[in-house]
């Protein structure tokens, strides 16, 4: 049921227009962070206030919304945001990736490939990829203006010097359309290849930092690397213990205090669909692989 005390999708119309104008400019300049007048939302910063504002500005009454947190539909953050929009926008919700028209995500891209007509909204904590290298906003803005991205390569090089490989495993920086270096939000670098050439519209909202950026469909997105240390999308070297999938991104779960552990798909919809199709993993309740 819609709560009649709120405007459709919670935000007032003037706020939505402001966010919508920022979204259109963000699509016109792929990878560039557009400042916007981020609002206080009825949830704390760090819980997806940027993503929620972008979703609110994009939702129509006909949408089917999916919300995931680290790939899972059933965690606190995902459940509370889903209920927020059920209450304020009365939109249908779903856990199935293929059925959703708008997907708000925290730190994952669904395993199932997205299609045209879908919008993927990322929750972003720190939108500025150079922030940990240069704390001053006026300096990082100048660096983007001048395409001065040498510092980022130095950081990746220091990874190699110290660890023998690029140790950055999430929020791995990318170059968009040969111009802006962008933080893809803290998705695992396993998901980075899905940023490029994606048929869906990808929108990024950072509430506390008040920035919106975007990737139009089929964008050219390249993970930064070196010729002799090429980018690799890595994952835990296991198969899912519940559905047996060998190519999905896995969470490691400690199961007792004697060092036992299991690996399960981080994408709960992907894992559940595979189990429904009869796929079994090493620790499936039903036993061994059929």
């Amino acid at each position: 049921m819609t709560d009649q005390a709120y405007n459709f999708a919670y935000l007032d119309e003037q706020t939505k227009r402001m966010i919508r104008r920022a979204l259109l400019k963000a699509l016109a300049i792929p990878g560039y962070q557009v400042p916007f007048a981020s609002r206080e939302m009825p949830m704390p910063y760090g819980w997806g206030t940027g993503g929620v504002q972008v979703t609110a500005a994009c939702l129509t009454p006909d949408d089917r919304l999916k919300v995931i947190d680290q790939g899972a539909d059933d965690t606190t953050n995902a459940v509370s945001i889903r209920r927020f929009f059920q209450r304020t926008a009365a939109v249908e919700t779903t856990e199935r990736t293929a059925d959703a028209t708008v997907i708000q995500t925290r730190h994952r891209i669904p395993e199932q490939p997205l299609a045209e007509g879908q919008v993927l909204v990322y929750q972003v904590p720190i939108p500025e990829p150079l922030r940990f290298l240069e704390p001053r906003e006026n300096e990082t803005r100048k660096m983007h203006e001048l395409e001065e991205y040498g510092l980022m390569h130095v950081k990746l090089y220091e990874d190699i010097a110290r660890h023998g490989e690029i140790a950055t495993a999430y929020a791995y920086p990318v170059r968009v359309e040969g111009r802006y270096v962008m933080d893809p939000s803290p998705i695992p670098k396993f998901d980075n290849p899905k940023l490029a050439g994606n048929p869906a519209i990808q929108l990024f909202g950072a509430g506390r930092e008040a920035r919106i950026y975007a990737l139009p469909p089929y964008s050219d997105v390249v993970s930064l690397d070196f010729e002799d240390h090429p980018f690799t999308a890595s994952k835990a070297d296991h198969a899912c213990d519940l559905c047996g999938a060998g190519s999905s991104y896995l969470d490691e779960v400690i199961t007792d205090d004697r060092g036992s552990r299991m690996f399960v798909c981080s994408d709960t919809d992907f894992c559940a669909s595979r189990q429904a199709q009869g796929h079994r993993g090493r620790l499936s309740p039903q036993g061994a692989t059929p």
Partner: protein
Amino acid sequence: MNAILTGGFAAPSTQSAHAFRALLEAMARPGRIFAVMGAEPPAPISVAAGVALLTLTDATTPLHLAGAADCEALRGWIGFHTGAPLVAADQAQFALGGWDALHPLSRFRIGEPSYPDRSATLIVELDRLEAQGARLTGPGIETEARLSLPETAAFRANRGLFPLGFDCILTCGARLAALPRSTIVEDA
């Protein structure tokens, strides 16, 4: 007088939501044409241009009216429905008019090197809008798109300014398409 008061969205929150999704898809997929509805602006302005104005402009967005769009009826309609201040071209965040009326395009803001988003969005009224003609490539386009543009040279020059430049929403009747600055435009 009555024409000024009517023709807005009857259900603003949901109608503008649908209209914005069309605009979002249009800006994300340059050259693709989308149908919109809900606005009935006074002549000579198209439904699609009216929808774009109602969805994107308000008292915080300076608007420039060019050529035939700069008429008493439309000024009143905009004043009543959006409250957008009407300004000269060089101060405009949005501009509305026919392609020829918008010239010279160098009047419009193209953003600043450190803030390329501070640029104008032109709502261009066209007599025809079809998926044929100039060849479009770039972000948002899988292989190529075709769109009946009034010319290509101005858009090529605009692309040359990237990441600066203006962005266009092209309107004709109840249909619209978009051409962001990132699109590479070539003759058919």
